[in-house]
């Protein structure tokens, strides 16, 4: 009796149920329990009355938005130049941009902080943003470069033949066609920025805390239930962001038809 081939996915099914789905359910369960295991809303209401946590939350979102914008502004031209055969014909420069992604992020961050120390730059908001951009820029460049590189050049040529000037070609053809890359670049930068911990501590000398840091502090000081509630809030934001980007993608697919 032959085994059906699709059954090969069953072990992974079980694995994912235990290690991907169950842990998220547990986050929700712990978030609505007190230390004795009784049901309570106290952890969630505590967040909304904890001005410290609310502040940190607002700062994290602000830093993440700023970081994403700067990465996009710096990264898009870079991706465009790298994908343009006229300006860049060597694969090595592309690899050089991707390479830092493979180097331990903590080490890179510490090196940046030490470099600022040596140059006598005070650690604070500015150095935090610089370090964040430095850490996440490759994650913005890579998806945009990929889309631009595969893009059919004849659209741009057709537009130019029909009388569009280079600026018009860029804004009306290149940018809309690379929307998929921009969306995934934004996701790859925004979400990790909101949730980083350690990086912000090192780059600001503990002056600025991000949301990830307070989750970590609560979990590490055995306040699992409050930590879980904070993690749940972050999960909801992630869920919303990925729903939004899913809609974007669907719209684009429809647009392509």
């Amino acid at each position, binding site marked *: 009796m032959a085994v059906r081939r699709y059954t090969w996915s069953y072990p992974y099914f079980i694995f*994912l149920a235990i290690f991907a789905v169950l*842990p998220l359910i547990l986050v929700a369960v712990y978030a609505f329990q007190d230390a004795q295991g009784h049901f309570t809303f106290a952890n969630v209401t505590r967040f909304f009355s904890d001005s410290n946590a609310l502040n940190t939350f607002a700062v994290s979102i602000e830093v993440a938005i700023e970081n994403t914008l700067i990465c996009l502004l710096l990264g898009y031209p870079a991706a465009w130049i790298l994908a343009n055969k006229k*300006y860049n014909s060597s694969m090595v420069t592309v*690899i050089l941009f991707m390479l830092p992604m493979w*180097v331990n992020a903590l080490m890179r961050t510490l090196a940046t902080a030490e470099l600022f120390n040596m140059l006598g730059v005070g650690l604070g908001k500015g150095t935090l943003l610089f370090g964040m951009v430095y850490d996440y820029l490759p994650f913005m460049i890579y998806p945009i470069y990929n889309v631009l590189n595969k893009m059919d050049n004849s659209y741009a040529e057709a537009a130019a033949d029909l009388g569009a000037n280079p600026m018009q070609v860029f804004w009306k053809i290149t940018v809309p066609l690379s929307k998929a890359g921009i969306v995934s670049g934004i996701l790859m930068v925004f979400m990790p920025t909101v949730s980083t911990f350690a990086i912000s501590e090192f780059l600001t000398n503990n002056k600025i805390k991000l949301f990830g840091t307070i989750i*970590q502090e609560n979990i590490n000081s055995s306040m699992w239930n409050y930590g879980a509630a904070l993690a749940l809030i972050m999960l909801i934001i992630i869920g919303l962001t990925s729903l939004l980007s899913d809609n974007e993608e669907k719209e684009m697919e429809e647009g392509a038809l």
Partner: protein
Amino acid sequence: MIRKFFAQAYIWLLLIILYAPILFIAVFSFTESKVLGNWTGFSTKLYENLTQGSLDGGSSLMSALQNTLIIAVVAAALSTLLGTMAAIGMFYLRGGKKKAITFMNNIPIINPDIITGVSLFLLFIFMRITQGYTSVILAHITFCTPYVVLSVLPKMSQMNPNIYEAARDLGATQFQALRKVVIPQLIPGMVSGFILAFTMSLDDFAVTFFTRGTIGLDTLSTYIYADARKGGLTPELRPLMTIIFLTILVLLIIINIRQQRLAQRNELKK
């Protein structure tokens, strides 16, 4: 001409900024000073310390490096096995089950590290699994396998479905057909999946941090974190990071040049 100059100047300026901290570490790996940024003359003492394992901070750096490598190899190998099996199965799944597993496969990809870490931490507490080597490896398999699946699945769809049927018609058992016909075609996807899993495991900090328990298991990342919180990095980290960086640089360039050559050869054949 002028445009080209500006375009290239922009690229190189970004690259210089991106690489400044790494270069900074590399340069100061050749001096003995304890404090990063303080040049006390050229010396290869830190490299010698590293190779002889006679570190000021004890041999904890070396054992952290060893842990990192063992965890990365084991996690990447198991992820590749699990992910390849899953990809073969998922390719033949249809309907709701396929949608469900694709959705579940995306969970570890979309979740930020800290959520993966915290949620697995709660899972291990819930299941009363003592945290240590096993829990870290299980956690790494969790966030690595989805990427293996994503690298192997396209190879399944590129494969000619008839060759499996042909092997079966010619008398191969199901298992023989998979092993001798299907798996060889998946190997490029499996290799890139393995490399991806390996590098992600090497680089991980947050997930390891939450799932390593309290037995004092350190990987390179958690070692660096603890070191920096104490104030001041172990000087031997500088040569170690320089070596790791150069190794990755050379590997990536070789892989890419090979791929380009392969692509060119394929072009010629056509």
